[in-house]
Every structure is written in structure tokens, then in C-alpha cells.
């Protein structure tokens, strides 16, 4: 039976393959049922078997499976599997839609809220992403969009049992938060990453009305100071809080309220305070919550410097918190107090020093004990020397991020290829790296490609434009080429430095799994863009700025824009005509053009030059909420 099926399937594949000039692998879709599948009469069956078609089984397996499909699907949670299941056949599509509890929408404009609520009826968790990443660099004018309002309105009606909302780069107002708090009595988790548009008053409403709240995480968001004491708004009874993060909230807080909240939150595991929390306050919090696993230490600076025994024993507080595995904060570090964290170093798996100006000498005694660290973020103030210390001890390191203390493009820079090479030699299990530096060599990058085969994320930012290998003076092509050739698991790549089209030919050819590509100030011509768009089979997100790519390059990707989440091209050499061509050819893709500021209408309308092109696929056509400065072609 199976062999017969395989034969006929293979044969059909061959047919399709020859006609469409596809390779055999992809023609599996052509093995659809013969036409009489819907009417399964006995004679049809008999005929089928003799005709060497893919044998059609009686409908039993399907019906049998349908009875229990819900049960089976509950064990399938990954988005990939869910999507695959939904595409199998109509009945499975239906059951999957009814049993998908967590929905992820990578681009809030790829579909309308109505489509979401129509298809999925029992959603409990929603993840929404709005603006593309380059918006973080002031490349996108304010009020561009990505409003949460229509989503909260639609889900408020459709999913009263909604428990979790996770937003990234969305515009969220206080009203939205209020509606959320009122509409979902069982609401449990709110995470806002890189969001804006709301203030402490919105947070207060959530704190007050969401009685089942377990997670309130505000990460890297802009929160206006409405001078509301939101911490006092939590209900007076015991809370269900497990995670509370407000390190991005740039306003003073009521310490007493926070302390009392911590006391009546026995399940609290993650507490990330903001820079207004001094060491003294931190100490009191730690004493009351020794069960914490993740701590954002606030300023890590004492309010008042007391002498001798009057000073709280910070090290003891850390010693008492036996479960701490993740430390962050240090927003305004007073170096003398850093050694207080020593008792927890051996258990640390994640350490974030990226707000602290830490020198190599400050770092070394600490990092020496951090054998279990997997995630380490720091400023480049730690210098190559500090990185060497990390390499010497942190053998379990999986993720490293080194940010520039002084992001100007012309300073000398304390870290270089030396640090990168050291890390590559010491931390062989490295999977993800983000590295800002002023100078780099192909040799160091190549070394990393050879020493760290597990790399999935490689983001190198050589500050200053078009900087070549500072030892040889050559472009950085060889280094990045080595990365794509040797790191076979690479899914995310960000390039920088002086790069010619050749680098992109490597990326296009070897970057088989790359899904996200970031390019800035690179390439010589449209060929570079063509290499990428005609290669990189898994490319989903392409963001490019200030590179010499034009209409020809843009056109070379027409065959695949429907299958990508988005493409961003700013300060390149695109013309309106070229962009319009794409818009007309691809009805399922929305093509937006706009300037980098709230330009006068004149500039954006009359000029042929396109400052920014942002295109993305959409099931529901162009959005209705585009501001005036955005033109949808």
C-alpha cells in the first residue's frame, strides 16, 4: 500500500516538477487527492486502486482522528507546528483554529483584528509586534501607527477570558490599558517591550483592576510620569505577582508602597526596580523577599553614605537570597559596593552590567566567580582585558552583548578584535553575540566563525562608516563571509564596516537559515541586494539603511516579498516609480513610503526620491490609520 502510494506520488511529483522546473522536494504539494475523494463510492475506490493513483483510503482515519484531534493538538504548541496543522485540510483547519490558545502576530498590520477574532475563537494569549526595529533609531516619524487600540477593542469583545498580552513596539495609551483592565477579569500577564504612549496612570489602572495579575513587565518602554503613585494602587490583599519589572520607568516611586507590596506578594520571583531605588531601599526589599530569582538592583548606589556598622550589610542580604540567578540594574553604580554581589556570583546565569561603567579591574574579581553565566551584557568600558577575563571563566556563556559607553563614531574605542577573538577561544558554546566596537579585523571575525559553530545570532556593529579591517585596510568581506560559511546555524546577521558586493554574494549563497538581516552603510551596487534577495531562502526580515541600493535591486525580490514579514529600506536610492511597480505587481503586499521626520506634505508628495520604504505582506490590504506623511502606493 505504502509503496504504491509513494510511487504514484513520486510520479505526480515528477510531472509537476518537469513542468514547473522545480526540484523534487518541493513538489510534494502536488500530491493532492484525486478528484473523486469527496465522493467515496466503492467503484471509485476500485478504479483508483487499479489506476495507480495514490490510493484513497476509506474516510475512517480522518474521522477517527477528528474525534480526538483536539486532544492531540493540545500537545502541539509551537507556532510552526500549529501553522502546519492548520494547512493540512479543512477539518483540521477548523479544529486548530478552535484550539489555538496562543496567537503570535509578528506584524500588527499583516491582518485586521477582525480576522483574528473570526478565525481563532478561544485565544488566551496574544503577542503583537508593531513597528519595525529601525524605528528605535529615530528613523521613523512619531505617530506612524501600530496602535494597540483597535486590538484591545476587538479582543475585549471576543476573548473575555484573555490572560496574557505581550506587545513590542506598539503605541499603547492609558485608555487602552484601562479598557484592558476592565475587559479581562482573569488577566494575568502584561508585558510591554519598547512601547510608548502611556503613563503611570495607565499602569495604575492595571495594577488596581487586574486582581489575578502575575506579571507586569515594562521593558525599555517610554512611560510618562503622570505623578501617580501606581505602586499604591495594587490591591491591599495578597497578590499573585510573580514578576514586576519597571526599570525603564523614569519617575520616582513610593518606596514604602513597594516594600509593602513585596511583603504581600509571596510568589514574587522577579523584581526589577528603577534607578530611583537606592541601595538602602534595595536592601530592605531583599530582606523581605529572599525567594527572588531575578533582581534588578536599581541604582546600586547608597542614598546616604553611612559609616561602619550603621551601614546595612549588603553582602549579607545577597547571601540570604540563595536563589538569585539573574542580576541587572546598576544604573548609577558606586563601585565600592559592587563586591556585595559576590555571594550570588557562583549561581548567576545572567548578569547585565550594560548600564554600569565598569572597568576591567572592577570586573575581574566579580567575573572570576561566575562560572555558570550564560548571558552577559556589559559596556565596552570593560575593555579587551575584561573580555579576556570573561573568556577565561565563563565557559557556559551563550549570549554576549557589549554596548558602547560612548557611542560617538569617532572615538578610539576600548574594545576590538582582540576581545572578540578571546571570547571566541574561551566561550565555545556561544550562540548569540552583539558587539559594538570602533575597529575590527577580518582575522578576529574569522576566528569566531571557526571557534563558535553554535552561533545563531551574529551582530557586529563597527561604529563609524565604511571602516575597513584596521590592520590590513581591506574590506570586511572575508570576515563576514567566514561567518556565513562556518556558522551553519546562523539565523540572524547584522553587518557593518566596509563591505563590497562580494560580502553579500557570500551571504546570499551561504546564509541558508538566515531570517533576519540588518545592513547599514554597506555594499557597492544593486548586485549586493540581488545576491541577498535571490539567495537566503529563509529570509523574513530585511532592514537596510544608507546603502546604494535602488529600484533594480528592489525588483529582484518581487518573487518573494509575499513570503517575508517585512523589508525596510531607508536612505537608499529608490524612486517612487520603482516602489510603485512593486506595489502594483504584488496585491498582497503593502508598500509604504515616508520621510524620516514629519515632513511637510510637499516634500513627500512631489519628490521622486524615496527616503524610506517599508513593505510588508498583509491579508487585509492597506491600513486605514496611516498618517498623512505616509503614502501607501
Amino acid at each position, binding site marked *: 500500500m505504502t509503496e504504491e502510494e509513494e510511487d504514484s506520488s513520486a510520479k505526480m511529483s515528477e510531472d509537476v516538477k518537469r513542468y514547473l*522546473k*522545480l526540484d523534487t522536494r518541493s513538489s510534494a504539494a502536488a500530491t493532492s487527492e484525486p478528484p473523486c*475523494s*469527496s465522493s467515496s463510492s466503492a467503484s471509485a475506490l476500485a478504479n483508483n486502486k487499479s*489506476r495507480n493513483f495514490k490510493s484513497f483510503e476509506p474516510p475512517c*482515519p480522518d474521522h477517527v482522528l477528528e474525534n480526538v484531534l483536539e486532544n*492531540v493538538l493540545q500537545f502541539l504548541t509551537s507556532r510552526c507546528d500549529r501553522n502546519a496543522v492548520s494547512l493540512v485540510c479543512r477539518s483540521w483547519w477548523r479544529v486548530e483554529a478552535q484550539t489555538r490558545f496562543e496567537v503570535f502576530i509578528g506584524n500588527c498590520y499583516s491582518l485586521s483584528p477582525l480576522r483574528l477574532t473570526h478565525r481563532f475563537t478561544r485565544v488566551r494569549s496574544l503577542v503583537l509586534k508593531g513597528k519595525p*526595529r529601525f524605528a528605535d533609531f529615530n528613523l521613523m516619524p512619531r505617530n506612524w501607527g501600530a496602535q494597540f487600540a483597535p486590538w484591545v477593542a476587538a479582543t475585549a469583545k471576543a476573548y473575555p477570558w484573555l490572560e496574557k498580552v505581550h506587545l513590542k513596539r506598539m503605541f499603547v495609551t492609558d485608555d487602552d490599558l484601562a479598557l484592558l483592565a476592565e475587559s479581562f477579569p482573569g488577566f494575568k500577564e502584561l508585558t510591554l517591550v519598547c512601547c510608548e504612549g502611556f503613563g503611570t496612570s495607565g499602569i495604575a489602572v492595571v495594577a488596581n483592576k487586574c486582581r489575578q495579575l502575575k506579571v507586569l513587565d515594562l521593558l525599555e518602554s517610554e512611560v510618562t510620569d503622570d505623578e501617580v503613585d501606581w505602586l499604591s494602587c495594587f490591591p491591599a490583599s495578597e497578590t499573585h505577582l510573580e514578576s514586576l519589572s519597571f526599570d525603564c520607568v523614569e519617575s520616582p516611586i513610593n518606596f514604602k508602597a513597594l516594600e509593602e507590596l513585596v511583603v504581600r506578594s509571596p510568589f514574587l520571583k522577579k523584581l526589577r526596580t528603577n534607578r530611583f531605588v537606592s541601595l538602602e531601599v534595595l536592601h530592605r526589599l531583599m530582606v523581605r523577599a529572599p525567594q527572588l530569582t531575578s533582581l534588578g538592583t536599581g541604582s546600586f548606589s547608597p542614598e546616604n553614605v553611612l559609616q561602619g556598622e550603621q551601614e546595612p550589610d549588603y553582602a549579607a542580604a545577597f547571601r540570604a537570597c540563595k536563589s538569585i540567578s539573574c542580576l541587572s540594574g546598576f544604573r548609577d553604580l558606586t563601585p565600592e559596593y559592587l563586591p556585595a554581589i559576590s555571594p550570588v556570583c557562583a549561581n548567576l546565569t545572567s548578569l547585565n552590567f550594560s548600564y554600569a561603567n565598569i572597568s576591567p579591574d572592577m570586573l575581574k574579581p566579580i567575573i572570576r566567580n561566575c562560572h555558570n553565566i550564560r548571558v552577559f551584557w556589559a559596556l565596552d568600558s570593560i575593555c579587551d582585558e575584561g573580555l579576556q577575563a570573561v573568556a577565561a571563566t565563563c565557559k557556559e556563556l551563550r549570549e554576549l552583548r557589549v554596548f558602547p559607553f560612548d557611542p560617538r563614531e569617532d572615538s578610539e574605542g576600548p574594545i576590538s578584535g582582540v576581545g572578540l577573538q578571546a571570547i571566541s577561544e574561551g566561550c565555545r558554546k556561544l550562540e548569540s553575540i552583539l558587539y559594538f566596537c570602533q575597529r575590527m579585523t577580518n582575522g578576529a571575525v574569522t576566528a569566531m566563525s571557526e571557534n563558535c559553530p553554535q552561533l545563531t545570532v551574529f551582530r557586529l556593529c563597527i*561604529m563609524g562608516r565604511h571602516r575597513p579591517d584596521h590592520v590590513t585596510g581591506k574590506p570586511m568581506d572575508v570576515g563576514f563571509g567566514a561567518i556565513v560559511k562556518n556558522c551553519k546555524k546562523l539565523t540572524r546577521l547584522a553587518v557593518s564596516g566596509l563591505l563590497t558586493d562580494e560580502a553579500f554574494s557570500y551571504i546570499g549563497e551561504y546564509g541558508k537559515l538566515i531570517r533576519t538581516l540588518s545592513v547599514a552603510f554597506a555594499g557597492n551596487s544593486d548586485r549586493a541586494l540581488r545576491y541577498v534577495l535571490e539567495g537566503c531562502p529563509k529570509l523574513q526580515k530585511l532592514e537596510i539603511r544608507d546603502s546604494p541600493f535602488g529600484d533594480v535591486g528592489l525588483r529582484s525580490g518581487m518573487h518573494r516579498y509575499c513570503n517575508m514579514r517585512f523589508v525596510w529600506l531607508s536612505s537608499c536610492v529608490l524612486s517612487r516609480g520603482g516602489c510603485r511597480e512593486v506595489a502594483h505587481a504584488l496585491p498582497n503586499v503593502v508598500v509604504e513610503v515616508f520621510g524620516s521626520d514629519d515632513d511637510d506634505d510637499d516634500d513627500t508628495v512631489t519628490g521622486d526620491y524615496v527616503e524610506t520604504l517599508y513593505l510588508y505582506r498583509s491579508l487585509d490590504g492597506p491600513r486605514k490609520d496611516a498618517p498623512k506623511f505616509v503614502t501607501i502606493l
Partner: protein
Amino acid sequence: MSEGNLAVMKPETMKSYIWLQTADGSIQQVEQEVAMFCPMICQEVIQKGVGSSKNHAISLPQRVNPAMFSLVLDYCRFHQMPGRSNKERKTYDERFIRMDTKRLCELTSAADSLQLKPLVDLTSRALARIIEGKTPEEIREIFHLPDDLTEEEKLEPLKNTMDDPRIRLLNRLYAKKRKELKERERLKNVEVEEHVDERSVDDLLSFINSRDPKVVKKKKKKKKKIVSSNDIHDKESHDLHSKQQCVVKTGSSMREVPNLPSAEDDISTPKARSEDEDDEIDPAMREMLDREVEDFAQRLNSNWVRSLGQERRPVHFSINGNGTTRRHTGQSP
């Protein structure tokens, strides 16, 4: 009946059996402690007092055939023993579910109707593992499911689409063909219907790949029947119209795409067929199919021909924290 109940309540008095009847009518007796492991059977015994004799056998749900029931009993027999360690149970389970997919489906269904949740979960998990990581095509093949989603519906996944646009179009054409043939089905007698059904798709494939003699041969035989019937001729012309409409509709929904490359070979091949074949085929139908195929080929063989590689399954997305890049203006990694 109360005596029967008592016997059920006190298993240590004597070995009691429960009488059960499977969907096929056969009756068997099963040790009480084993059978009672199934909540559904338990319920029947306690609430309705049945199962204590052959004449009052408990009728099992339809989805429980003898083969499946035997498996379920094995499972119950093992697990109802209190002395077993977790490790033993786990090992048993792992070995127990090693069976082909079809049986696994049936077993899941049987366990479900007997309300035996541990077994339902065990088998469901096993099925989920089979499904994990597969493409829709592969899943369809494993479970013998029809590909009956419209193109619109297939566009809907909120993540990237699975198929190359060409495959989607091919499926759409197939779906349209199926619909048309279903139409015809309703208007003719059964036997002839079937031939028409199969042959049309066959036709399409043969036009696509006219080099395959096997396919052509089969086609020859059946075509005679069709051509001879008057009914069909009429229907043909009627269908010709509807087909044309479909083609036109397809045309309007697609935009003009430039750069028709030199894949004309594929389009011209159907026309370069031998005389023999032409004789057998209704010219109207052939013309119509030719046009459709040409149309289809044009649409397909536009820019997409150049695309390298196939996007089949989306790689698992992960929500990336992007780091504190917000603070850093200027270049972005």
C-alpha cells in the same frame, strides 16, 4: 442486581468478571479489576448495574472494535496493578504505543470513548510527536487527508505562508478542476463520471508532461467512452463556458507580470502531440485545456522561475529581545 453490585464492590470474595459486548456483536468477559479501570465501564456497572452476566453485557461504544479493545485491556491490565513503579509504567507505555499510525488513531479514539484519559493522553502525545516538525503535505500523506483548503484559506497563517506561490496556484487549479468535475458528476451516470473525473486531471498532467506514454495510453482507452455520448458533448460545451469564465477570473485576479521567460518549451509541448492522441480527444475540450494550461504556465513562469530554493516550512520564530539598542543612535547592528 444488588448481589451483582456487591460482588463488584468486594473484589476479594471471588474473581469477578464483567461481560462486555464490542461493536461487532461479540461478547467477552474480562476480569473485573481490569475492566473497571475504564471509567465508562465503571460507570455502566455502578450506575446501571449491567455487565454481571452474558445476557446483560455492557455494550461498548461503536469506536471500540475488538482489536482496539484488546489493546485497551492490555493497557488496563498492566496499569491497574498497584505495585508498579513509575519507571516500569513509563517503560511499558513507551513500548505500548509503538504501532502504526492508523492503529494509533483508532486506539486514541477507542480510549476516548471509554473515557480512559491516561491512555488518551498517551496516544495523543504519540500522535502529536508524529505531527511535530512535518509540513502540511507530509501530514496529509501520513493520515490520508484531502487537500481541500481554498487558496484564500491557505494564505491565512499568521506567520509566513508555507508554500511557494506556484504550488498554491497549482492547488487552486486542481481545486477548481475538482469543483468543475463535481458539477459534471451530478449530471451524468456514475460509471462514466468516474472516468471523466480521473481523466481530466490525468489530461492536465499529460499536457503538462506529455512524454509519459503510460498516462497517455490509459487516457486513450477511456476517452472513447466520453466522446461517444451525446450528453457529454453538450455538457462539454456548457462546461467549456464555465471553464472559460474560471480562466478569465483567474486572469483578472492576477496582475500583469513582465518578463515571460523562455519556458515556452513547456507550453508548446502539449501542442506537439502525435496525431493518434488527438483523434481520441474531444477537440473542444482539448482547446479549452490548452488555453488553461497556457494561461497557467504564463502566470507561473514569470519572475518566480528564478527563485532559488523553496520556502517550505517556516523556521521556528523566536521573540528576540533586541537589547538596549534604543539608547544608541547612529548605526544600528
